[in-house]
């Protein structure tokens, strides 16, 4: 069958659309704004997306197995306050401060997959419920207060601990390469993107995740333990969200209440922009990273153009719906072919 001119155009838009939009947006701001294209601003942009990229990597895992993890935002909220409280309330050593939130993230993933794999609850609904449960736990745990150094406790005493400097370095530290400032969370993010990409593209388990998401029954008949694969995807998603939570606490130096709620949508938008990068047509980590950059650039540039923070959700939501429109329209066309 002959592909029409219109179809070709569509394919082109699908393949290179996201990249062209990012370059276009970048060029627009660079011309329009004096300080946009400077080393420090680029470092700022990358730092601003480091947390959401971790969460988006987690969402990517869940989408690869044809699932969807809505609970990541709440997991970030919970792990942020737990991280802070371990230092401020309990004066735990750094090792514990990092390990406990990661375990919590893994547990949330296990709970999600338990209901999805065992009870066959649709992924969206199961993780929606877990999202509220986890959010509730985090509010109950903090009694609704944010956690900060030597905070006033409800019984009138002062909390004994402070956020340690070593811990704060994770999110706030930076070092210098020549004239460039390189924030530590940016390095962590790039390492995570690279590791996740290698994991998905070059390991057996990564391949099995894609195959499970592509056709669960065919994967099962090919001898893949699909339940186990799906479970792992959610555990990985929970752990990624937990890393996001730890970074958040380190970045702001307090345990903010409800920190993760706004991050869910941003992460999901990044993943769906990533669908269309280079015409992948399926969730992939490099695409997710590029999607994350797109959102970061947009928010940064528009902020510099004096757009108020309360308009940010409009921008992020618009990016998401456009990415979804492109993805679903073109993928549907392809399937019909």
């Amino acid at each position: 069958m002959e592909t029409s001119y219109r179809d070709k155009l569509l394919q082109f838009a699908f393949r290179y659309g996201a990249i062209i939009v990012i370059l276009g947006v970048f060029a627009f701001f660079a011309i329009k704004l004096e300080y946009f294209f400077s080393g420090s601003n680029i470092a700022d942009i990358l730092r601003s997306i480091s947390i959401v990229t971790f969460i988006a990597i987690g969402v990517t895992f869940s989408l690869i197995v044809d699932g969807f993890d809505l609970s990541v935002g709440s997991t970030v909220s919970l792990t942020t306050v737990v991280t802070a409280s371990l230092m401020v309330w309990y004066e735990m050593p750094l090792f514990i401060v990092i390990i406990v939130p990661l375990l919590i993230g893994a547990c949330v993933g296990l709970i999600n997959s338990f209901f999805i794999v065992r009870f066959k609850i649709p992924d969206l609904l199961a993780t929606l419920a877990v999202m509220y449960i986890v959010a509730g736990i985090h509010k109950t745990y903090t009694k609704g207060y944010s956690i900060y150094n030597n905070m006033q406790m409800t019984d009138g005493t002062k909390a004994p601990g402070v956020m340690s400097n070593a811990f704060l370095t994770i999110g706030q530290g930076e070092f210098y390469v020549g004239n460039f400032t390189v924030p530590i969370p940016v390095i962590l993010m790039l390492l995570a993107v690279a590791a996740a990409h290698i994991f998905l593209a070059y390991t057996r388990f990564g391949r099995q995740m894609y195959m499970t998401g592509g056709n669960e029954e065919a994967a099962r008949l090919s001898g893949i333990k699909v339940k186990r694969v799906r479970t792992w995807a959610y555990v990985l998603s929970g752990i990624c969200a937990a890393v996001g939570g730890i970074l958040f606490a380190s970045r702001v130096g307090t345990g903010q209440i409800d920190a993760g709620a706004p991050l869910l949508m941003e992460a999901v938008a990044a993943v769906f922009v990533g669908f269309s990068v280079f015409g992948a047509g399926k969730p992939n980590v490099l695409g997710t990273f590029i999607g994350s950059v797109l959102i970061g650039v947009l928010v940064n540039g528009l902020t510099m153009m004096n757009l108020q923070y309360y308009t940010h959700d409009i921008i992020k939501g618009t990016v998401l719906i456009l990415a979804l429109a492109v993805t679903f329209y073109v993928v549907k066309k392809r399937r019909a072919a």
Partner: protein
Amino acid sequence: MMNMSKPDHTASKSSAAQTKESLHSTGSAATRISRSLLRMEGIEKAFSGVKALKQVDFEARGGEIHALLGANGAGKSTLMKILSGAYPLDRGEIKLHGERLEIKTPTDAKRLGIHCVYQEVDTALVPQLSVAENIMLDRMADAKQRLWVNPSSIQRMAQQACDQLGVHLPLSHVVERLSLAEKQMVLIARTLIEEAKVVVFDEPTAPLSQQETEVLFRVMRRMRDQGFIVIFISHRLPEVFGECDRLTVMRDGQHVFTSEVADTNPDEVIKEMLGEPFQEQFPPRTSNIHDVLLEAKGLHAGTKVRGVDLEVRAGEIVGIVGLVGAGKSECARLLSGADPMQAGEVRVRGIKLNMKDPADALLAGIAHIPEERRKEGVFVQESVRTNITLPILNKLTRIGFLNRKQETSIAERVIEQFGIKTASRETEVAYLSGGNQQKVSIGKWVGSDAVIYIFDEPTKGVDVGAKRDIFRIIGDLASQQKAILYFTSELGEAIGIADRVIVMCDGQFVKEFGRNEVTQEQLLFYASAGREE
């Protein structure tokens, strides 16, 4: 070319019934069905270039039950889908009482009084609504009707429809609590409400019990006597010869034979269904059969598999034939651990398997090439390479990492060995033809440790050239001392390729033949519920 569709104007035994008036009491116009005659003339239909129907003529009269017969792929379902508007026709005419009908959509067909009762009854029912509401569903959904739904008039009209059919249905119960047979009745009653003139039954008896079947036939006879044109698609010859008035046989997309049932016999019909024995090209093969590899005893799963015993040896190809719905796929899925079995056991080389998952069957060396390859066999959005290497990933992996070079060379080798026509090994499988997708679905097992291959309709939707390749591949596997189970509804294939042929019917193995001991006629006889005297 034999074409016997021209109407023979011999006296029909149902002429008395034709003059009867319909008992329709719904709506303003009580439809008068007299001397009704449905004719389809010169119907042609092609699907992406492949002709499914070639110049088909078909005729059915009011006041008769007309059986439409044919082997799988003969075109009978396609023809009826054209009649009911599910497919648009490419060429030809449909006439009712000599009046030409324009049928482009199912809505057109229904408006003109042509209704179809499909096997999948649930797709046409709203489970949470009552029986009466379901019977009246189209009427209630009709925008031209009054806005308000009057429960008592719904009940009354539904009751009238049931009375007309002579059946009793619990009108106020919700439909989801009904048996399958009762659900069929709901749909039949609905056709009365919609003032049907032609009602097509698409293999309605396959899932029914003996008793339910008798009730259904009573209803069909009653509809016939009221002057409806009743068309009955079935595989079961005893039913056709017991209940129908006339029959039409189709083969390879063509009309081949129409006769009064009284003027023919099952042997003649089977001969017409099969036609000239078509010589498929099967590769010459010398069997070299050794020890028993696979052994199954007393397999049970629901009503679909009812006590199956089986033995397959190394180097042996066992063909298992049966018509659609005989339980072949279900049986194949039990053997490969895809579905749980309710009773029975499977042994490989004498060792009993504990199968919870296909992965367990695979460890024992059982590979399953499923019937629905796009749904269960291949990953259409993945490349040929990743499809082929999936079952052997563990062999291509070192500390979790894939050896891409080795993977690529294995994929290349399978593509060449199987003659898979693809632009490259990185092409998405979605872009391959059906036959080549099937080769991928088989080819992925080549490097694995599978010793028992279960094929479920491997040539379904595959062109002639690819078919020959697939037969060759299967023959090669047997000569490598693999054990092959070949489930098919293509009788000729089983005879051509298998060392032994087992006939399956209604979930049971009913007959077994050795190589060259059997004809297609015999197989079809046993497969269509024939019994030895």
